[in-house]
């Protein structure tokens, strides 16, 4: 997918002005956070489980080559194929080859962020293979010709009214024939639309929440059951996954599963946890005839050896964006690429380039809520700060900002001059406030006064008053 992250400010502004988006976000902001807190409070060992999840992911990353190799061997032993792809282009071509070899005309898809990362849908369309999103949120987003705004709730930016309109427009001839209002009616109509497509599809494409080395298993967690139909009904099952998804054992996977759903949606477990271990074996009734795992690198191996390694622990639960007040204000599309919110603010500049993604790690107040809820304890603000350091060193900051920062820092290192200059500033602000206690406009501080007044200084610095009083209150 082509990044638009460089235009973060414009996109954020658009999001802030979008009434429907703001309606959708207002509802979203309280839902997930409350449910996560309740689920965490109910499980006494929750914090210990987070520590275990960290250990498992760190261990897997430390021995990534070993576990990936083992995983691939096991997949092949089970009759599946593993395709190692370095770039998104490699992955797209491989998927196309597999689809073409199967004579595919349509491919069902369950939710996969890697599918978004490699921009698979437009590519398949160009090659006359119809991609069909089967996750309800993804289906909505596909009808709207958009892309997901959240990694686990792709259509969280849409209101129910917008979905009603969208379904009416696209289902008119085939669906209820009228605009539907109820959530259940809408879901039923979408389910009806998708049913025949599930059956007609030649290839089913899923993502993977886990790759299990010990058994060569891929696993997905879903709440709709669409993943099962996607991977069981078609003749060919393709799994899209990046390298860091591998864990050593099924036991390790279940440990992480215990924090995943609780953190993501507040559920104890997702409705479906589906394991795929190779194609249908002799005598089995269900399952695909062919099983392919696309293992995509796209920058992960470079991250592994970098100071950003901890971001590879991410299990894509979405909690950081659920709890992020910036995400909650502007929505996911503002971030301009596949991964929004705090995890995206670390991942995006690393995958699309710091110059392109430089706004993302800056657009954080470092409030720390993301780190506080991250199930695998990724120090997200710390990693964003590292990106800011890189940005500073690469001189990517706007020259004016860099200059004022340098000037300020120089003053801060020279207390006498600093206090002299601060005194001038204070007196100027006081004069401009004309005893109103506040300023509605301040030259050189338009960023501050665009949305709020500047409270006027009380008058006299603390230190000067303190000295005058001889160190007495």
């Amino acid at each position, binding site marked *: 997918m082509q990044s638009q992250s460089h235009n973060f*400010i414009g996109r*954020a*502004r658009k999001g*802030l002005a979008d009434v429907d988006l703001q309606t959708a976000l207002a509802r979203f902001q309280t839902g997930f956070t409350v449910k996560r807190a309740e689920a965490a409070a109910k499980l006494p060992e929750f914090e210990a489980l987070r520590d275990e999840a960290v250990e498992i992911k760190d261990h897997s990353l430390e021995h990534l080559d070993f576990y990936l190799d083992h995983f691939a061997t096991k997949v092949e032993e089970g009759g599946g194929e593993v395709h190692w792809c370095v770039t998104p282009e490699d992955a797209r071509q491989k998927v196309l080859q597999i689809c073409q070899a199967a004579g595919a005309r349509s491919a069902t898809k369950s939710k996969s962020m890697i599918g978004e990362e490699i921009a698979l849908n437009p590519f398949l369309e160009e090659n006359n293979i119809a991609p069909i999103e089967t996750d309800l949120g993804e289906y909505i987003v596909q009808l709207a010709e958009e892309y997901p705004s959240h990694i686990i709730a792709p259509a969280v930016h849409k209101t129910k009214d917008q979905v009603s309109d969208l379904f009416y427009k696209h289902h008119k001839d085939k669906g209820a024939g009228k605009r539907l209002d109820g959530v259940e009616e809408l879901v039923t109509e979408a389910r009806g639309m998708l049913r025949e497509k599930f059956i007609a599809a030649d290839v089913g494409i899923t993502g993977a929440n886990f790759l299990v080395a010990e058994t060569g298993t891929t696993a997905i967690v879903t709440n709709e059951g669409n993943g099962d139909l996607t991977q069981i009904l078609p003749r060919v099952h393709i799994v899209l996954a990046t390298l860091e998804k591998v864990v050593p054992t099924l036991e390790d996977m279940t440990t992480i599963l215990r924090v995943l759903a609780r953190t993501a949606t507040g559920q104890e477990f997702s409705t479906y946890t589906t394991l795929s271990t190779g194609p249908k074996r002799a005598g089995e009734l269900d399952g695909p005839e062919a099983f392919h795992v696309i293992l995509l690198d796209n920058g992960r191996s470079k991250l592994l050896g970098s100071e950003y390694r901890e971001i590879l622990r991410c299990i894509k639960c979405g909690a950081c964006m659920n709890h992020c*007040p*910036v995400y909650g*204000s*502007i929505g996911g599309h503002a971030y301009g690429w596949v991964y929004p919110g705090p995890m995206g603010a670390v991942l995006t500049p690393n995958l699309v380039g710091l110059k392109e993604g430089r706004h993302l790690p*800056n*657009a*954080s*107040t*470092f*409030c*720390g*809520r993301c*780190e*506080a809820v991250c199930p695998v304890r990724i120090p997200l603000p710390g990693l964003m*700060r590292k*990106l*800011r350091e*890189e*940005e500073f060193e690469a001189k990517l*900051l706007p020259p004016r*900002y860099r200059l004022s*920062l*340098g000037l*300020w*820092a120089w*003053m*801060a*290192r020279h207390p006498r001059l*600093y*206090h002299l200059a*601060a005194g001038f*500033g*204070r007196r100027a602000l006081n004069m401009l406030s004309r*005893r109103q*206690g*506040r300023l509605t406009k301040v030259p050189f*501080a338009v*960023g*501050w006064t*665009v*949305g*709020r*007044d*500047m*409270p*006027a*200084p*009380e008058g*006299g*610095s*603390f*230190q000067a*008053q303190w*000295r005058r009083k001889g*160190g007495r*209150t």
Partner: protein
Amino acid sequence: MNEKPQIGLFVTCLVNLFRPSVGFAAVKLLENAGCVVTVPDAQTCCGQPAHNSGDKKNSRAIARQVIATFEKFDAVVAPSGSCAGMIKQHYPALFSDDQKWRARAEALANKTFELVSYLSDERSVESVNATFNGSVTYHDSCAGLRELGVHDQPRKLLDSISGLELKELPGANVCCGFGGTFCVKYPDISTRMVTDKVADAAATGAGTLLAGDLGCLLNMAGRTTREGRTIEVRHVAEVLADMTDGPAIGQPEKAR
């Protein structure tokens, strides 16, 4: 423990410039808790603007200056969770490859505290001698809450004030949108966040909104006056020190 601990007051650049009364409130509270307070002249800022902009060189230079100025005291106290958090949590990390300064940074970090938690946790202050007629609501500033665990201490001390009613703020732990340089780099997003915050605060029905960090307070006060809201904004130390006669933040001098 020393009977009369020598405290270096890290007054913070914002308090020094905008709201000296918070500094005097801090001194009063510390002295009432049996401390001897000194305010070193050489202090300017803790260096967060540089640190949060990725300027490691200047962050280190400013940190060295703060360490050298304050390491002689028994404890360093700041009426701010974010400045205290900077010294406590971030200074040692700034010197990861400089053993000598790292040791000095750690020593300072170990004796640096946010004002209200220092009173409560280190000086065992259980109550304050103050009166306040009215209801307040309290916003947990992010760094104080999540870097230093300041949460119960201000509530406990506020509870001891006669006449004061504390109304809990829904979403008290959600950022107000200040974020240091964030608020001027991304003013639209910041404005949105602070608009939500002051709306939530006003909805509690409280007459005064309190917090422990002047950055957040200037942000929230600036938004309440911009919107013409009646809720007043003050630093929690002013209320705890019984120093609420002067105008609230962003309010004009009262007519005499």
